[in-house]
């Protein structure tokens, strides 16, 4: 019975999506009526407020746009940093692998919100103490630095796992062709390792996207903070927070579906 | 004349659009030993996996020991106690000892007491000639030993019918003999056996009937001597000549 249903829906994908949408809308409405009967979405979500939450204020980037900006910049920086750290740790060359390991383990163990706080509050002090330089940090810069710190640690582990997953036979075969270690690494190991890492890195990006909400605590006016600012004025938390929950869900869900599609494409390439 | 314990009537099966079984009519008498052979992809595994409902079929009827598999009231778990299966890849439970692999069925399904089940298990291990392995884990045994344990596991449920799905195909050559010996001893014991295999020597020695399948259809059925000496269809002739050339 269930196999038949699954097969039917695999063929009629549009019908399946419609069924899901109806089911979701029914569930959501039921939830709202039970949990919070007096919800008033239309007065809570005016055009101006939605605009603020999505785009921020007139003269600067904010809201959901800032969320995406922050996520993109952070993932690129942490990809670079994480690759260097991961390769350093994997290399086994003590002088670089030990500091790399210490960094990775420290920033993997710390709660992200703590790192965010401390970059914002401590960085000026840090620079003041050790370099004697007076630095003021903007919240956004601190956010980017903080994200780079802990995301690099996570990506370093993904890189290390990717490198470890290459079978020994690959090294041996390349060496028998006469390549030196450096050439083996660049031409044989790295490309294969990065292809295997793609799914994990993509899912780390979705994770980072969700984590952007944490910069709320240092005042960066991205999507979540924008919503709480509005909520503090109008005190309609159910409506506002439902709205951002749904938008976050749609963005993260779409991103992860795109990631899955990309994964499948890469797998096809690998196997053809 | 003994009753048909397995009766497959006009069975069709599709995997999506692939027609895996085409109007298959297959029956087995109680106590009979049937070998099913044919080129790979011919549907032999699919067919015997329909018998214990590991695969479903699209149309036709399948009656095992008088019970129709399409009937909603048929208790498939109970029916499966009567049909044992030995798999190509053994499928022993790696997290249980050899003895536990054999006794778990009687204890959990037949609600046998542990002491009785253990006694039965040891007897069966003696029968398949590896009693000293009782407290080891499957990973510690060779392929041939694992398959013999798998056979003992099936016997523990006291089935009427034993289905073999290429039981020796995954074994190293030197271990095939020990498994075939166990299977031959079962042939003397009134079990109904349906065996998908490429081991033609086994077929000649023990089978009452050989069924040749290709492309989802049963092309030929005969006694082993007649089949080997006088294959009627061209497909069968081709198949046999390839087997002989390779062995």
């Amino acid at each position: 019975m269930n196999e038949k249903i699954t097969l039917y829906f695999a063929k009629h994908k549009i019908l399946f999506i419609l069924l899901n949408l109806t089911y979701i809308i029914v569930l959501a409405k039921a939830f709202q009526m039970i949990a919070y009967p007096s919800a008033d979405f239309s007065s809570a979500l005016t055009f101006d407020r939605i605009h603020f939450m999505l785009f921020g204020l007139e003269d600067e980037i904010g809201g959901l746009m800032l969320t995406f900006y922050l996520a993109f910049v952070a993932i690129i920086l942490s990809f670079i940093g994480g690759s260097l750290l991961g390769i350093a740790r994997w290399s086994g060359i003590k002088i670089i692998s030990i500091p790399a390991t210490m960094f990775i383990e420290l920033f993997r163990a710390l709660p992200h919100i703590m790192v965010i706080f401390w970059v914002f509050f401590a960085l000026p002090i840090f620079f003041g103490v050790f370099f004697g330089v007076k630095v003021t940090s903007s919240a956004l810069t601190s956010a980017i630095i903080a994200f780079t710190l802990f995301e690099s640690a996570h990506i370093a582990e993904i890189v290390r796992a990717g490198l470890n997953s290459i079978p020994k036979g690959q090294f041996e075969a390349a060496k028998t062709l006469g390549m030196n270690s450096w050439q083996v690494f660049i031409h044989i190991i790295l490309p294969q390792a990065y292809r295997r890492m793609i799914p994990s890195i993509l899912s780390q990006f979705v994770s980072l996207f969700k984590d952007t909400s944490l910069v709320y605590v240092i005042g960066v006016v991205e999507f979540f903070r924008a919503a709480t600012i509005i909520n503090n004025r109008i005190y309609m938390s159910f409506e506002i927070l439902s709205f951002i929950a749904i938008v976050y869900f749609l963005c993260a869900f779409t991103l992860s579906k795109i990631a899955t599609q990309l994964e499948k494409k890469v797998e096809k390439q690998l196997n053809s | 004349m003994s009753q048909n314990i397995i009766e497959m009537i006009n069975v069709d099966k599709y995997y999506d659009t692939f027609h895996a079984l085409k109007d298959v009519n297959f029956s087995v008498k109680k106590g009979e030993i049937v070998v099913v052979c044919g080129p790979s992809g011919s549907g032999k595994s699919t067919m015997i996996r329909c018998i214990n409902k590991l695969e479903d079929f699209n149309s036709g009827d399948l009656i095992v020991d008088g019970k129709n598999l399409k009937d909603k009231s048929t208790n498939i778990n109970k029916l499966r106690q009567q049909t044992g299966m030995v798999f190509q890849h053994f499928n022993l439970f790696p997290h249980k000892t050899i003895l536990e692999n054999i006794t778990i069925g009687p204890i959990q399904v037949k609600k046998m007491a542990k002491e009785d089940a253990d006694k039965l298990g040891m007897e069966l291990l003696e029968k398949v000639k590896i009693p000293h392995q009782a407290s080891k884990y499957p990973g510690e045994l060779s392929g041939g030993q694992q398959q013999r344990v798998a056979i003992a596991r099936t016997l523990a449920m006291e089935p009427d019918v034993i289905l073999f799905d290429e039981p020796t195909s995954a074994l190293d050559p030197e271990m095939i003999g020990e498994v075939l010996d166990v299977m031959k001893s079962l042939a003397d014991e009134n079990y109904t056996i349906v065996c998908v295999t490429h081991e033609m020597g086994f077929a000649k020695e023990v089978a009452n009937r050989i069924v040749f399948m290709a492309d989802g259809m049963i092309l030929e059925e005969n006694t082993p001597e007649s089949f080997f000496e006088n294959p009627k269809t061209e497909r069968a002739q081709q198949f046999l000549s390839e087997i002989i050339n390779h062995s």
Partner: protein
Amino acid sequence: MAYEFDWTVLITYKQLLIDGFMMTLKLSIIGIFFSFFIGIFVGLARVSNNFFLSLSGTYYVEFFRNIPLIVQMFFIYFSFTLTDAFPFLETFGNAIGVEHHNEFFSALIALITYTSTYVAEAIRAGIQSLPKGQMEAAKTIGMNYVQAMYHVVFPQALKMVWGPITSQFLNLIKNSSLAMTIGVAELTFQTQEIDSLTFRGFEAATAVTILYLFLTLATAYTMSLINRYALIKTQNNSGGTV
């Protein structure tokens, strides 16, 4: 201006650290316990043959996974007064020595829903990566779906994904820090508290980091003990048991 380290503030304000640690501990232990069992339940639903069950499981996982944890915490805390809707929470809260019930339970529930999705996915991956032959063999000796799951499939799957599940529990401990944003006085909150009282944030952060490390190491160790003594034994490649 140089920064003068003053580690004595940790002793003066050690009660804050202890309180924060206990709060984090409560969130973590209860959170881990419930996410484990709810995660197993949802994971089993996802792999079940029942279309409705597996669809509901998928809904649960996708919904609670894609919404940031902090948003979930805020949503529960600001939209509802939990103790009005569920009075037993107040009794429970008092029993475990928690004072601000609404904050605590809003954070706890969000932590549980969020983490259970990852546990569910791990369980699902474990069950699906097991060779189909295991379920088939169990069925051929007459076991029904429940027996086959309980005796054969689930034990093996759980063993396989014990590592990933441990990671998720460690994530829960770290994520408990988000509770501070709705006013739960857990460890990270206390870092800020001590800093605002003494301006010795660096020392506070060091102490708190050590405490988090201690908690995560203890949890990882406990999980490995459970692995050794309570889970099934499997062979590693050289024939030894693990």
